[in-house]
């Protein structure tokens, strides 16, 4: 039953045009645009070629929204329409529900990652070793976990009206400052200091380093793991937070 629940969570994402447009089509479109405008220049020694750097940045950009949109706005909406109450009265345990949501969020990250990489290989002539392709997708997939956890926390913390704009605002802010829009090498030093603690920068850095043929840094792994643990704990607190019943109806009714 938990597997069917997971399947339902995935199916409804695929039906959601907003997800397809923002998390899958937009990164591909932006990649084609930016790679055409800025990707031509050969990178300086030790730097990635523009088409590769932007490919990784846009893969991260899509993955972040896939993970966030599958959780935050959805959980907030399900809380407000009472679907989570319905689930509690069914044999699924809260743990299974949570696992289903997390697994679905991670699953919908994959199309964003894979399709942007495919676009790079097919349309922009990005050429990497097979192990690099596999490692980029694999590492960035795991690296998307903090964003799914962030979404779960937001979903239990804020109302249905605020969840979408808040998630989207955080997404845009973290993407811009995290060097997904502007190459980190062109960010001012003060921005770069901020970028380095953001999970968005660290997610893309995983891919950039693998594309350069090196292993991701311990700082990347540690920063992402730290965000995952912190957001996971905050998520648990948000989930356990005592809340008034919906609609302001008398509790005793």
């Amino acid at each position, binding site marked *: *039953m938990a597997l069917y*629940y997971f399947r339902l969570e995935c199916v409804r994402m695929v*039906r959601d045009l907003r997800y397809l447009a923002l998390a899958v089509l937009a990164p591909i479109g932006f990649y084609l645009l930016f790679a055409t405008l800025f990707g031509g220049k050969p990178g300086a020694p030790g730097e990635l070629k523009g088409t590769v750097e932007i490919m990784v940045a846009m893969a991260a950009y899509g993955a972040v929204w896939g993970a966030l949109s599958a959780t935050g706005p959805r959980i907030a*909406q399900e809380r407000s329409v009472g679907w989570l109450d*319905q689930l509690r*009265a*069914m044999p699924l345990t809260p743990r299974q529900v949570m696992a289903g949501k997390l697994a679905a969020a991670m699953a919908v990250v994959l199309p964003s990652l894979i399709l942007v990489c495919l676009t790079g290989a097919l349309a922009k002539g990005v050429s990497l070793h097979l192990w690099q392709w596999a490692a980029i997708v694999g590492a960035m997939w795991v690296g998307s976990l903090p964003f799914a956890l962030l979404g779960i926390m937001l979903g239990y913390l804020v109302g249905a009206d605020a969840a979408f704009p808040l998630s989207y605002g955080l997404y845009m802010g973290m993407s811009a400052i995290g060097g997904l829009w502007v190459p980190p090498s062109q960010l001012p030093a003060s921005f770069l200091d901020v970028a380095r603690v953001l999970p968005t920068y660290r997610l893309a850095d995983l891919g950039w380093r693998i594309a350069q043929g090196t292993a991701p840094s311990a700082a990347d792994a540690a920063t992402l793991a730290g965000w995952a643990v912190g957001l996971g704990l905050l998520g648990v607190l948000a989930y356990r937070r005592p809340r008034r019943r919906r609609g302001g109806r008398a*509790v*005793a*009714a």
Partner: protein
Amino acid sequence: METVLALEGVTRRYAETVALDDLSFAVPSGSAVALLGPNGAGKTTTVSLLMGLAAADAGSVTVCGTTPRAAVASGRIAAMLQDSGLMPGATVGELVELARRCAPDPLPAAEALELSGLSGLARRRADRLSGGQAQRLKFALVAAANPRILVLDEPTRALDVQARARFWEAMRAYAAGGRTILFATHYLDEVDRNAGRVLVMSRGRIVADGTPAQLRERGGRSVVGFRLDDPKAENVAGVLAALPGSVMAEGDRVSVQTDDPDATVRALAAGPLCWHALSIAAPSLEESFLSLTAGPSPISATSREES
């Protein structure tokens, strides 16, 4: 008969409000029981406790000999909750399938859809259903799970008269298989037709427990009404005063409240008065209900509703 639902000395408080006050009752397997009471009587709290969605502050709740959560997890009890909703983006058929996968002994999906009158709508998205259809889907989810015990919290709220009739028709067909049903309602006609036993709740306690017929007799008296041809006739006052029952006269209209309407009518027919337009109203469940649950509601409950 095996007891499948049991509350013993259950108290539940919300902040300063006592929602359930030392509540005890037991429901034997196979019965249809109505929880009847005004808003704030504790019906929904009772349902929450039976489903393990809330815990009792004192006392014990037993479902099929085990804890409510264990009974829910094993699919022995399922509920149509009052405020629950449906998964946006999923179709009717998918949600029924989810309910079936969760259940140990589910009904075929087609049968659950048929019972709830949703046969043609399996591919419709749950968030695009009308209010009545959504309510029927919530019933289909319970029906598909095929539990031994069904709990329905005001299942026909927000349904129009025809939809209510259709709902109960489906419900009766479903219940015919020997299932135990507990439903909360404040519609008296639903109680009369669908419950073999009524628990009347008021302010967290049970104030009456019996069949709808017993309840009707408890609170109400029959009313014999008629009109006098000549209210100013000189013997009227004396004759009326001699009728069995308590008499109220206003102009030419007279009504007599009585436990024994037969005796009142016989006395009237044998007496000297000239009268017409005789009517006899049986004691109503509504009157009984109102007399049982009458009284001011606690102030704390009111203030909470505003918060």
